[in-house]
């Protein structure tokens, strides 16, 4: 990276390639599969724009990890306002390992929420049900489903940030 800061394109290409492979694994454990590509590319772009903030006397890994964590939290924040997409019943899936790990990590986080919040997030944000459908399934009013999603995601965001601070 120090060479890249001096303008060495070859070294830069190598460091970005290694970084993108690492980022792919990093986000696979933390985001739904459909968001991984965008998150990796967004982070690579951030690395490019902020490359002057890297101090060569310090290791590259923690610097990259800090940017990746920032972008991850940013994604989670956007998830709160993003419209929910309905999925087809039959979706072709290539591999399961990353998805299972990601789902496991999400489930662990959801377990810290109140059951009504976790259920609303699970149905609307993860399983693609509409607010009305989620309201019918949970017995909550539509506005309560929205409130539970909003508060649940806010709490998830705080938990992730606190965890990140502890790390």
């Amino acid at each position, binding site marked *: 990276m120090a060479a890249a800061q001096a303008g060495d394109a*070859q070294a830069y290409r190598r460091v970005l390639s290694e970084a993108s492979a690492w980022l792919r694994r990093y986000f696979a454990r933390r985001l739904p599969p459909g968001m991984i590509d965008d998150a990796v590319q967004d982070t690579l772009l951030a690395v490019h724009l902020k490359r002057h*903030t890297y101090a060569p006397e310090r290791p590259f890994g923690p610097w990259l990890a800090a940017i990746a964590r920032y972008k991850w939290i940013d994604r989670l924040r956007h998830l709160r306002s993003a419209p929910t997409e309905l999925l087809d019943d039959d979706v072709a899936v290539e591999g399961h390992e990353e998805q299972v790990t990601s789902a496991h990590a999400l489930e662990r986080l959801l377990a810290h929420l109140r059951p009504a919040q976790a259920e609303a997030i699970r149905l609307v944000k993860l399983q693609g049900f509409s607010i009305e459908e989620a309201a019918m399934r949970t017995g909550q009013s539509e506005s309560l489903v929205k409130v539970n999603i909003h508060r649940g995601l806010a709490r998830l965001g705080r938990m992730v940030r606190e965890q990140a601070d502890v790390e």
Partner: protein
Amino acid sequence: MSSEIRPDDLLIERLAGSLRPVRRRRPWLEMAVLGALFGVELALLLGAGHMRIDMPHAMGMPSFWWKLAGLTAIIAISSTTALLSLDPTRSPRLGLRVIVLTVLAVLVAGWGVDAAQTAWLTGGETLWRRLAPQSGLRCTRTIVELAVPVAIALGVLMRRGASVDLAGSAWAAGISASGWGALAFAFACPFDDPLYLAVWYGVAFGIVTIGSRLLLPLILRW
């Protein structure tokens, strides 16, 4: 070996193709920029004839030195915290805790200075006279005006940096900017009463800091 092109290969190629050498961030240089800006503000303020007329007398008062030492300590810690937090691997949270403790220590020291030089005048009228609200509001306004250029400079520096805790960096930047503004004004302000300073300088700190907290994250997001 797979010949499959990953989705980010094209991006990497584009980024590497447009690579230009960059000048690394140097926090000490950024601190020097803030110091220089403070110097310009102070020179303009004193050059316009605003230096307090009782300066020789003030320099013999413990409260004057308490004011300068307290503001310098707050500036040193808050500016360091704000600038270091622009490195994505550093969090401003510890620095912010130290700032809170420093402000408390400065206020406690001010209470001690106050107790030593004021014969514990009490009563609503006395307190009102010590607070001198008309002068206090003028002081507050001037400190805010002097803090704004520093806050803008910090905003520019922060935009170039890569803070991963925008709120924390903005708090530190707001405290730092108001500290620089208050220190410049300290040479023009004829008031050294710790109670007066705690209230009116405190209000100015609050305005600039809350303003920074609300506005800076909007331009710092990256």
